[in-house]
């Protein structure tokens, strides 16, 4: 058993954990980007990377630590987006407040779904999550009006323009969106880090390692997994609200569809599930690759960029089955070990 990671955290000279120092430095550098370059396309692309890193991190909060594969998380993102948009258009409520309601509704829904399904293991759990998400998506696509709420079916919802307004979560420049999603990502990574070191984190990891053994040790898997699911759903929903405000348009096909769920899972798995930085790394690798492949190959030979994307995925799975974070982690460990071994 690897006790090192639990007992001894490598510390810098100032006594801060090295990981925290690196994270702080990294986020600080990224936060400077909009001040240094005035390039809307670059900022837009960075927002997309951060957004997917955020979504993948939210997914990782549950699935990476419990070791169950959910392919229904897009539903939570859709619920978050729909609730914040509808509260804004129908009640005039600020999306900042609406997104909290969306998050709570998603968390509630996740508990309703999770309670019966967490008893299922492996593919059965995955299938159930797909089924639930698809049911919700199809229902929304086919419902124009639900008890007086105009869901507008498959047509999707438009967020009416409200000018430059913090209250309405709408900005003409991309920079505010950049800082918002950067802060959201920092928060979810911090939450993951805290959870890792909490009782909840240890319970989840025990359940992931061997569910029966964990139960024999007196850990009841249901409350801890449900808590993690609810938090994960809440955060995913906030991401959905961000998407709705950034693009000012959502529809069930994209914002509740299977493809978004798969994106979240694939980025986490490629980056390294069950780690704090893995999802961010996955998004950092995959989003630019798909973007570059698309802009360089997409117009000439249609579809080739998807082939390239697929090849990268296959290479990652073959060579880094534990995620791209694993070799980086080994490198970091070797560096800190060398320092630590000196008396």
């Amino acid at each position, binding site marked *: 058993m690897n006790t090192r990671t639990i007992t001894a955290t490598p510390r810098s000279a100032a006594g801060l954990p090295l990981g925290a120092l690196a994270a702080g430095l990294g986020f600080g550098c990224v936060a400077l980007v909009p001040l240094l370059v005035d390039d809307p396309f670059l900022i*837009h692309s960075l927002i997309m990377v951060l957004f997917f890193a955020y979504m993948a991190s939210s997914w990782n909060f549950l699935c990476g630590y419990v070791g169950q594969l959910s392919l229904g998380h897009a539903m939570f993102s859709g619920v978050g987006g729909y609730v914040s948009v509808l509260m804004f258009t129908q009640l005039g409520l600020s999306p900042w407040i609406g997104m909290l309601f969306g998050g709570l509704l998603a968390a509630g829904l996740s508990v309703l779904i999770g309670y019966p399904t967490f008893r299922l293991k492996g593919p059965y759990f995955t299938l159930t999550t797909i089924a639930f998400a698809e049911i919700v998506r199809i229902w929304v696509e*086919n419902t*124009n009006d639900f008890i007086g709420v105009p869901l507008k*079916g498959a047509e999707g919802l*438009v967020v009416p323009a409200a000018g430059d307004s913090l209250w309405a979560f709408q900005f003409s420049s991309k920079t505010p969106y950049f800082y918002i999603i950067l802060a959201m990502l920092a928060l979810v990574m911090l939450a993951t880090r805290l959870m890792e070191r909490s009782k909840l984190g240890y319970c989840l990891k025990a359940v992931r390692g061997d569910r029966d053994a964990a139960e024999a040790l007196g850990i009841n898997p249901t409350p801890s997994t449900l808590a993690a699911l609810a938090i994960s759903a809440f955060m995913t929903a906030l991401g959905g609200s961000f998407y709705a405000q950034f693009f000012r348009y959502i529809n069930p096909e994209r914002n509740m569809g299977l493809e978004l769920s798969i994106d979240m899972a694939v980025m986490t798995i490629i980056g390294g599930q069950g780690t704090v930085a893995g999802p961010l790394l996955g998004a950092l690798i995959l989003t630019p690759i798909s*973007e570059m492949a698309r802009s360089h190959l*997409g*117009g000439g030979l*249609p579809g080739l960029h998807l082939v390239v994307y697929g090849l990268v995925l296959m290479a990652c799975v073959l060579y880094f089955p534990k995620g791209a974070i694993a070799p980086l982690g080994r490198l970091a460990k070797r560096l800190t070990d060398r320092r630590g071994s000196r008396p």
Partner: protein
Amino acid sequence: MAKPSRNRIALLASTMLFGVLAAGPALAQSAVKIGCALPLSGGSATVGNQTRAGALAAAEQINAAGGIKALNGAKLEVVFGDTQSKADIGVTETERLVTRENVAALCGAFNSAVTFPATEVAERYKTPWVVVGSVKDEITERNFKYVFRINNKATYDAREQLDALDLLAKETGKKPKTIAMLYEGSDWGRSHAANVKRFAKDRGYDIVLDEAAPPNQVDFSNQLLKIRGARPDAVIVALYTPDHLLFSRQLMEQRLDLPFGIHSVGGGTEDPAFYKGLPQRAVDYVFVQEDWQIDKLQQTNDKTILAIAERTKEMLGYGMSAYAAQGASAMYVLADALERSGSTDREKLRDAIAASDIQSGPALITGYGRIKFDEQGQNTHAHGVISQNLNGQRRTIWPLENRGSETKPVWPVPAWSERKGS
């Protein structure tokens, strides 16, 4: 000695600098970049690639004919972006085309769900966008200044189907009274059905069946049974290719008689692959509303249009379609505006597009009589064309101006028992 030489160097340097500066705009004018955001992969890839082929073929023709004359023969260069039918990717691609490729104007993006948010990006960057294929009404109802739509709004599609019923009724004195609706249950089918319902009421038709079908069905028996039970005079259908294929095949097998026929609003029946997958009997007398005139190539003698059709066929392996025609039309609308603006400046180009009034030429390849935009950027002269499948040929029957002199619509359509070979 040193002084004059330094002056000479300075003179030389400034001449060179001036030369570079002067050459800059001249070089830039040798090509006009047009960005085109289309679904080139994913669910709508066939449509996107047809539009791409049409746009490329049209640009080739324009360039071969001497490019944009007002810009010293500048060539059109079409840069494509793949939206993958997703709103966020479409927005990202639009950002890239505007800021990285520096396009003078944009076109696209077929899926209304992509066009809607992507045109907002174009509006923000004050870059003109010519909408291709998207029919969502609101796209040209937002008081935008840079968004123009050549083709129909969704409401036009529904209105035209009933206009055709009315026209045939007026010509023959035989008017259908009841209509059944069968449509796919997502965005397009639903909004179309809602529009048909609205117009039908005003025109005195009874909707006796309103049936939404989930996509990719394996059996239409149930829906056919419902239609048989409702005994409608005519059926309005909005289905995509796979579902439309199965529906038409089963309807033929069940020999379901509809006195005033099947009226399909494109989708599957616009797709050239649809006609390859069915025996002729299954599509006899079927009415199809689509965004271009299917017998245009037989009726026109415009060499450019025929050349575009030839080139498109070379690229795709099958004939022209509504989507290819729309891509070609967009290029000609932009070329026309560039000739009048004499500049690739986005603001001037925008004003030129807004002032467009095209009444002839290849821009009207889709079958419209005129292209002129209202203050919301909608071409109010846009219309689809409705054809009837007669003796294995799809012949235009509506509008009357587009109907060939030898075309005689069959109305009402013969019962299955009266058709040849049964």
